[in-house]
């Protein structure tokens, strides 16, 4: 078990026994490669399996949720900000892109959605720069609630009662993506792009500084780390990823409703990151798959789904605060002692 102070956070900064004896590269270079290999594998497997449209839809949803969850991973797991606004930011991306697309075209519409969410998130984070933990959580919950009510009442953006229909389909290389398998390739490209951006972030010094800001803000500030700027930046960047995912979802489905991006999804995103693991961006990707599969494969849960999720949060936070990746890593850490001569490998990344 990790020590109590590092329960929900990345442990890569913590001095471990190995760190003193083995030399580790600061920014492992194979992360981009892993992303590309993942994309190729997903593409190959999905086209080889010739999935039914329904199953293909699940794969598509998984990729959209992954994008949103990776944004949340940066906000929550790396920067330690407990934000419950991620689903709302996806909603902003979806609606703004839907409103803008008829005049700008779909790609530029998506950019508009992302930009709006980024500006909104940055302004909010600036306003809340002195606020942490529960206060920040409940403030973001308030923001989401306010934004949802505004969109629902504002017919120009929200359509009738917050349900906007007739959104243009996704476009790629000058053609519209309407069928589930066409959408798949479009979303796979977007998913890969988002993962590449995230991988670049994972290996940048920014990540270290964010962890420092999260753990010991005072020390970080005395070392010249721009605490407020970093907090605002990561919240805006994570929210922009959410907006990207939300915009893709809106154009893929052809309609958006405020219900699809409600508090349920915010908690769902939270479960994705917590379940997959908070110590790597891949945790969010694994967790998103879990979240997509559970309601379909565990149909017997029925109305007990929310009870299951609530219990899952409790079990994870009490017994497995590092999620699946954390479990895999602690297993991997023990292996070399039993098999001498093999090189130690740390988990997925």
């Amino acid at each position, binding site marked *: 078990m990790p020590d109590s102070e590092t329960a929900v956070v990345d442990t890569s900064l913590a001095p471990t026994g190995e760190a003193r004896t083995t030399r580790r590269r600061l920014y492992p270079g194979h992360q981009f490669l892993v992303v590309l290999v993942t994309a190729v594998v997903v593409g190959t497997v999905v086209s080889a399996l010739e999935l039914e449209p329904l199953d293909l839809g699940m794969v598509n949803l998984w990729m959209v949720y992954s994008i949103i969850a990776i944004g949340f991973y940066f906000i929550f797991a790396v920067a330690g900000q407990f934000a419950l606004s991620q689903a709302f930011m996806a909603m902003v991306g979806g609606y703004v892109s839907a409103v803008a697309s008829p005049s700008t075209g779909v790609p530029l519409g998506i950019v508009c959605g992302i930009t709006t969410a980024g500006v909104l998130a940055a302004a909010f984070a600036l306003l809340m720069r*002195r606020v942490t933990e*529960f206060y920040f959580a409940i403030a973001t919950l*308030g923001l989401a609630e306010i934004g949802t009510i505004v969109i629902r009442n504002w017919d120009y953006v929200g359509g009738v009662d917050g349900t906007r229909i007739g959104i243009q389909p996704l476009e790629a290389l000058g053609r519209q993506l309407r069928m589930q398998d066409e959408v798949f390739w479009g979303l796979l490209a977007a998913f890969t792009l988002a993962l590449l951006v995230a991988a670049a972030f994972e290996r940048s010094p920014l990540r270290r500084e964010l962890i420092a800001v999260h753990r010991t803000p005072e020390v970080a500030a005395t070392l010249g780390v721009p605490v407020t700027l970093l907090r605002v930046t990561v919240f805006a960047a994570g929210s922009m990823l959410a907006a990207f995912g939300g915009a893709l979802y809106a154009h893929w489905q052809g309609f958006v409703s405020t219900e699809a991006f409600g508090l349920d999804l915010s908690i769902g995103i939270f479960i994705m990151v917590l379940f997959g693991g908070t110590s790597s961006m891949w945790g969010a990707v694994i967790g998103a798959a879990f979240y997509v599969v559970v309601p379909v494969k565990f149909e017997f849960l029925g109305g007990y789904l929310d009870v299951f999720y609530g219990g899952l949060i*409790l079990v994870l936070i009490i017994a497995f605060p590092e999620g699946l990746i954390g479990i895999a890593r602690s297993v991997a850490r023990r292996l070399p002692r039993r098999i001498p001569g093999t090189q130690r490998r740390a988990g997925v990344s």
Partner: protein
Amino acid sequence: MSTFLSLLASGIALGAIYALGAAGFLVLYKATGVVNFAQGDLVTVGAYLTFWGTTSLHLGVWKAALLAVVLTGLLGVVLERVAYAPLRNRPHLTIVISTLGAALMVRALLGLWLGTSPITVPTPIGLGTFDIGGVVIARQRVLIVVVAAVVVATLGWMFARTQLGRSLRAMATDHAMARLSGIRVRGISMFAWGFSGALAAIAGVLVAPLAPVELGFGFSIMFGAFAAAILGGFESLGGVVVAGLLLGVVEQTFGAYVFREYAELYPFLLMVAVIAVRPQGLFARRAHARL
């Protein structure tokens, strides 16, 4: 003028509810240093249990309300055992998350047990109104203010004058020291969670008869209560009461004249504004109390 006075009266009643809810946050915060995400859902539980007591158990309204308060208090104790006690030494963020998980479970189970369609909660004193010189006030709102005043006064006396109150305050100041001094921290922590749950239930029981109640009922009350708790400085009961009344009156009077279509936004707007502008509370002497 009489319309304004009526609005002012309902503002005071709403403020009393916020103050009660905030007192629930405060008791818990004083004793354990944490804020409970499930507080809003405990408000809902209080309302639903009253409904259950009157319809399924055929109890009188007073008895059903009392039963609801006691049972919600017990639920608070259960939450302490499940969501707080195993995590007491972990970072606060962890505890916040576990209370979120608990809130999700409580709400889902409540929906499974008593259904998701809106319910009507009865009141012991009827839905009539008082007419005082042209100012119309619902009887229920008068009851709210009276009960809230009694509860808050009792609470204030308890904090200041009883051994229990002193133990609570000692635990909040320094948990380890309190324990070394022979305070039974485990029991008092359970008591604080139970008491906080009972306060939430009282708020729920009081406000529920005013409108049909559904599962998200406690949610917006929690925001108002949390705004009151912050604005009051999370320290003194008096501050919290003043802040609660202030917020309630602002919401009711402004809500009737400005942005009427968006009246449902007020608890959230007030809460976000309070956190952004004055996170240390109105009456704090030291800035940045413990954020």
